[in-house]
């Protein structure tokens, strides 16, 4: 029930803008090194610990391949706690206060909450042997690692909207919303930023990243947009045709949904597709610190990333062949992939005054 917040970030500091001129993706490719050898003593110590406890917001179904591969390789059991973004945050701070730290690895999509945990001292630094194989924006001070790259896009009902009508760019989208008001009235959905941390991240990111976000919000308002607190409700309403279009949804889920749902389509902006990441950290006082390190290493390794990508969570590595990786994903969304950087900019909207200001602006814009 707790919204899985996906954090929010200040876009000024995205990897893309810092690496202006050279594509972030290309740079990463250049920085790639051959497979790193894992330290044998770490493996031994981890095996002695025998188990690793993970607090996460990722459905077991999507992570199962990763978990199975890890256990198969090292014989270390995984206690996998899918407790949601808020659940993970709540349990980590509560357990720490009680001196009962249980989580070894905290791995959630709430980028802002993860960064808050790091800033508040709930994480310990750990230099992953794989650090060189992921983009630099995906590593925050060797403490917080981006493990996936998940595009933000839109889903539509293929019975109601044929594929050729789906707008390709932000500008097209705004125009489409404005020009088809009769058809779309009350049938467009998006996240409610007040009730969903994910939605908050997506919307605020757009507001920073694009110049026409508020035009989009007004166009949504004019169409009588309906706002939801969860991906599930939005997907279900688009599947059923109750809504025909949902905007700023989690594209990695959507790419999976369309495989099993015949009347659902997914689309990404070719000029601009933001992407968030699931971030992993090792908690301070982790009962199984070595197993935790080994797990994070494994998650970032080619093998681990292959497993994640096969479960529908695109890889931050370019050398991954199953599913999507950061490069193929960028191609898939039309070349406009803009990852949200893992940096302190994520904390900007933790300031209540800024939050409230955004909520007020948002509500005013979508009031129609």
């Amino acid at each position: 029930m707790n919204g899985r917040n996906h954090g929010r970030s200040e876009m000024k500091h995205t990897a893309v803008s810092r690496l202006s001129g050279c594509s972030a993706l290309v740079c990463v490719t250049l920085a790639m090194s051959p497979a790193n050898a894992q330290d044998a003593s770490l493996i031994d110590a981890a095996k002695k610990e025998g188990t690793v406890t993970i607090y996460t917001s990722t459905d077991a179904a999507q992570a199962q391949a990763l978990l199975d591969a890890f256990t198969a390789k090292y014989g270390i059991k995984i206690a996998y706690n899918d407790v949601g973004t808020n659940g993970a945050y709540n349990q980590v701070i509560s357990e720490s206060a009680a001196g009962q730290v249980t989580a070894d690895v905290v791995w959630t999509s709430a980028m802002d909450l993860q960064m808050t945990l790091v800033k508040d001292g709930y994480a310990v630094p750990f230099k992953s042997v794989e650090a060189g194989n992921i983009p630099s924006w995906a590593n925050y001070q060797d403490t917080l690692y981006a493990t996936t790259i998940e595009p933000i896009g839109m889903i539509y009902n293929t019975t109601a909207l044929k594929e050729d009508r789906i707008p390709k760019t932000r500008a097209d989208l705004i125009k489409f919303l404005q020009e088809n008001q009769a058809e779309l009235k009350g049938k467009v959905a998006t996240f409610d930023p007040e009730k969903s941390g994910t939605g908050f991240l997506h919307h605020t990111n757009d507001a920073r990243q694009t110049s026409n976000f508020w035009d989009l919000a007004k166009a949504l308002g004019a169409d009588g947009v309906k706002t939801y607190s969860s991906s599930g409700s939005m997907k279900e309403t688009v599947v059923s045709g109750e809504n025909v279009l949902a905007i700023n949804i989690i594209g990695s889920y959507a790419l999976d949904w369309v495989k099993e749902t015949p009347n659902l389509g997914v689309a990404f902006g070719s000029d601009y597709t933001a992407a968030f990441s699931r971030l992993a950290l090792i908690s301070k006082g982790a009962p199984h610190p070595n197993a935790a390190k080994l797990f994070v290493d494994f998650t970032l390794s080619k093998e681990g990333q292959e497993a994640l990508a096969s479960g529908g969570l695109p890889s931050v590595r370019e050398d991954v062949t199953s599913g999507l990786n950061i490069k193929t994903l960028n191609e898939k969304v039309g070349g406009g992939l803009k990852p949200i950087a893992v940096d302190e900019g994520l904390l900007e909207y933790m300031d209540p005054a800024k939050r409230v200001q955004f909520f007020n602006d948002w509500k005013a814009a979508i009031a129609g």
Partner: protein
Amino acid sequence: MATSHHSAAMLADAAIVDLPVPPHTARPAGDAPLFRNIAIGILALTVLAPVGLIVFQSFLSAPFFSPRAVLSLDAYAYIINDPTFYKALGTTTLFAFGMVAVAVPLGGLLAFLITRTDIRFKRLLEVLVLVPMFISSIVLAFGYTVSVGPTGFLSLAVRDLIGVVPWNIYSLAGMIAIAGLSHVPHVYLYVSSAMRNLPSDLEEAARTVGANIWRVSLDVTLPMVLPSLVFAASLNVLLGFETFGIPLVLGDPNGIMVLTTYIYKLTTLFGTPTYQLMAVVAMVLVLITLPLVWMQRRLLRNARRYAALGGKGSRVSSLKLGRSGQVIALSIIGLWLFVSVVLPIGGITVRAFVDAWGEGVNLVERLTFSNFYGMLQVPSLVRGMINTVLLSVVGGALAVGIYLLIGLAGHRNRGFSNTVLDYIVLLPRALPGLVVGLAFFWVFLFVPILTPLRPTLVSLFVAYVVVGLSYGLRLLQGTLIQVSPELEESARTTGATIGRTWWDVVIPIVRPGLAGAWALIMIIFLREYATGVYLMGAGTEVIGSLMVSLLTTGAMNTIAALALISIILTAAGLALALRLGARIHD
């Protein structure tokens, strides 16, 4: 509540407050005061620890365990100045009273038809009318979306027929209608037991002085069951204030918010969860609930005046409906059952076996078992099912044992501890399951001797026992109170201690009732969803909370499959309950 609340519960409610307490009577020797006080004391601790934590949290500026936390009224100030809070409060009030306006007349009518008339299929109806009560409101809400949502299969059929869908379940009115219809059993149980317990000679007396059937119903039956109607109404207002699943699913699209979903929003509104604000709203719910509970107690006390003077209750002559009366009555009940049972369960069933639905989709073409197959591939979901069954079946049995001990502690208890018991039982009822679960999470985390139990099902079990307390205890008390005092007194005069009397006389006599109570509590535990959200972890997943958690990532296929499994388990539980002779009716 729940459950399965009911005649037994009603009796027990009455029993608790009706015991005449003579001023300063010394407790008779051998009344097991030690056992009573210890049992009630442990219960008080179990209930008051989490509740106290919430009260404490509401007066802090940060999470109570945070070094930054200081005593402060800021949280109250924020809530008091938040216009959204008042909007949610207003909506909740409207929702709760609207629900009562739907549920009470219909529940009263149903109770009248089933207990007082010769309506056909009576035995079947007695069971069927209870079914909506056993489905968790979140499952109900999903089911309704698929059947009568804007693109539900029934909505589309109606639209094909008349051109428009004449209803909107995402409106406040739609939510009220759905909640009202699904709470009819709660009214039915109280009113029907009152009607059954109403001595028939009171009605016969009215007929012999010249009143016809309808006159009797109006002049004698109605006033006599009025306390139970008012009681049921106040209970439903209470339940209305706590409802979470229906507003969560149906109120979301149009931004209709009630206090429980307002609390839910507070977990994300400020980025990090604001426990102090959540605690304040929980306090508001308690403050709203307490006067209602107080009123209920008053009502039951006054009801003593209405207690029949002697009289035979056995010979109830039923009113003849006649052919057209039968048709009308059965149509009303049939329509209600269609709306409150067939539509949601049908919706869930359909959804569980298709991978797409709605506008322009031929459901037959989309039939698939993949939803179930996919679910079985995920260990945590499979574990969730096993845990849910374990918690319901074994936990339910243990809970009956615990409720029995508490029930005995309060059985014919005239001491101060009984008043304590009475209030303690009602406290958890006032709090949303989500908040109770969170508080228990903290209790198990911060109380050193309890910490080893936190990652086990025991922590969930304890929370479930407390959440199910008011329902389960009333169930047991209702059973206990049926043992006539003379049977116990004769055992005592023969030389048995109070313990022996309970063991040799009371428990053997109530044993059939215990089996039934077990099955009903099993159902209550099966459908629970909010309590486990914060408590469950790896290895302790439960179906209901998994559904809530899956909703955020959009695994609707899995949710539907889980919901159907939970309905099937509930049906099995209900069948078992009936098999064991649960006194769903007395």
